[in-house]
Structure formats: structure tokens, C-alpha cells
């Protein structure tokens, strides 16, 4: 019984991973792709780990720690990627409505240029 529940949870996790992959292909620009990859794969990972916990109840605490590591590191890597992408001016999708970061950078450059 526990194994059936575990399998279903792992399958749900796999579905989120698959959706992350589809999101990577379908989203219009780098930044939105990073977003799709980050979120869906985080929940997918946690669900797979939780499902594994049903198979091996004695691993539960270790799996919890692994889940926390995923939660800590996944957003960091997506932040680093998107920040680097913006720093080398990878273009944003045409549907983009506002870019406060470029405005900030422009204002900062102007300030240092005038002083």
C-alpha cells in the first residue's frame, strides 16, 4: 500500500519535471525559461523525494535534509543565471512591459559619469 502511494507521488513529481521541460521549450525568452525551469523542477524534486520516503521510511529525515538543500540551492542558481544573462544584455521577449533594472543601471552610469 505504502509503495503504491509512493509510486503515485513520484509519478506526480515526474509530471512536474516534464512540465518544466515543456516550459523550457515553449517560453519566449531566457528569463521566462529560467523561471519555468526553477519552479516546476523544485516541486518535482520534492515530490520525488517524498515518494521515496514512502518506500524507505527510515530515510525520511535524510530525504528531508536533501529537500532543504534543493530549496536552498535551486533559487540561487536561477538567480545567478538570470543576473549573468541580464549583465551581458541578453534580449528580453518583445512582450516585456517594463525593465527597472536597466533603468537603474543607466541612472547609475549617468551618475558616475557626471561626478
Amino acid at each position, binding site marked *: 500500500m505504502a509503495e503504491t502511494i509512493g509510486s503515485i507521488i513520484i509519478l506526480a513529481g515526474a509530471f512536474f519535471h516534464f512540465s518544466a521541460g515543456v516550459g523550457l521549450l515553449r517560453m519566449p525568452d531566457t*528569463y521566462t525559461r*529560467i523561471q519555468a525551469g526553477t519552479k516546476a523542477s523544485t516541486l518535482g524534486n520534492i515530490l520525488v523525494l517524498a515518494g521515496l520516503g514512502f518506500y524507505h521510511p527510515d530515510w525520511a529525515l535524510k530525504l528531508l535534509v536533501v529537500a532543504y538543500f534543493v530549496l536552498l540551492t535551486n533559487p540561487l542558481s536561477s538567480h545567478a543565471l538570470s543576473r549573468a544573462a541580464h549583465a551581458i544584455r541578453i534580449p*528580453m521577449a518583445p512582450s516585456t*512591459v517594463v525593465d527597472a533594472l536597466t533603468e537603474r543601471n543607466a541612472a547609475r552610469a549617468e551618475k558616475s559619469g557626471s561626478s
Partner: protein
Amino acid sequence: MSPVEEESQRANAALPRGFAGLWLLLLALWIVFNASVAPAILFVGLLAATAIAWIFTTRTAVWSGVLLTPGTLFHFLAYTGVFVIELVKANLNMLRYVYAPRIDIHPGIVKINLRLRSPIGRLALANSIALTPGSLVMDIDEDALFIHWLDVRTTDPEQATEMIAGAFDKHLGKVFG
């Protein structure tokens, strides 16, 4: 010597601020990894936890804002609850975008206010934002975060702050300051 410095000197003479919390966390992790409390393993763990916690709390100020009190614990649990709900919401949202026949989004980078002061609180907030519906931290200033928003609904910093960080800000402020 100013009163403030004097006080920090006195605190250093006993245990550095935040030492107990970090020490407990490290020891708990060690016991979980080993899945055993045999005397030899426990001894090595105690030694390592003490050394690492000592170095981190005396050499950096990162941990010094985190104090272990019942209030902190309660707000940490409340934060975890809010976070899990937001994470699931983020994923369902993302599924809706991903499987829509035509992806109709208006992405953009907005600026929001940052009220948290401690470095670790900021890290926690930035990480939480990255995992919540359609937002991703791009850059950080003294008092502002730049967020890539999948579907921009407002460009006003005040409103955007409330919509993106409002749920976490309160609890994280209580835990990390």
C-alpha cells in the same frame, strides 16, 4: 570605547551571539546524516559542531541576528507553511502558462522595497521569492530588490512589494530581523 562596542565585547567574552542556534542545527544535521547516536560518532559531531559554529559566529556577523526563542520558532514554522502554499500555487500557475495553447504573458523587471536588514534574512526572502508565482530575483540593492515578474500587474514599488513579498516579509522579519 563606546557603550555599543563595550556591550559587544562583553557578549564575546561569553558565547558569541547566535552560537547556540547554529550549534544545535549543525549537531542535528550530523545526527541525521549518521542515523546513529553511538558515543564515538556523537563525540566527533560535538567537536565538529562546536568548531564550525565557533568559527562562523566569531568571524562573520551573518548568524548573529538569529536568536533561538519560542517566538522565532513559531514564526519560522508559520513561514514554512506560507511558503509551501505559495510553492504549490506557483507550480499550478506555471502549469497553466506552460500548457496554454498560446502563451499570453507580459514579463518585466520591477523594483520592490526591501525591509529586511540582516544578510541571512535577505537570502531567505530572495530564495522564497524565486520559488513563488512567476517572480525571480535579478539583483539586489541597499534597500531594493529587482524582480523578474512573469506577468507584470503593477509597476508601482509599494504595490509590487505587497504582492510579491508581503506574505513572507512579516514572518521573516520576526525570525531574522
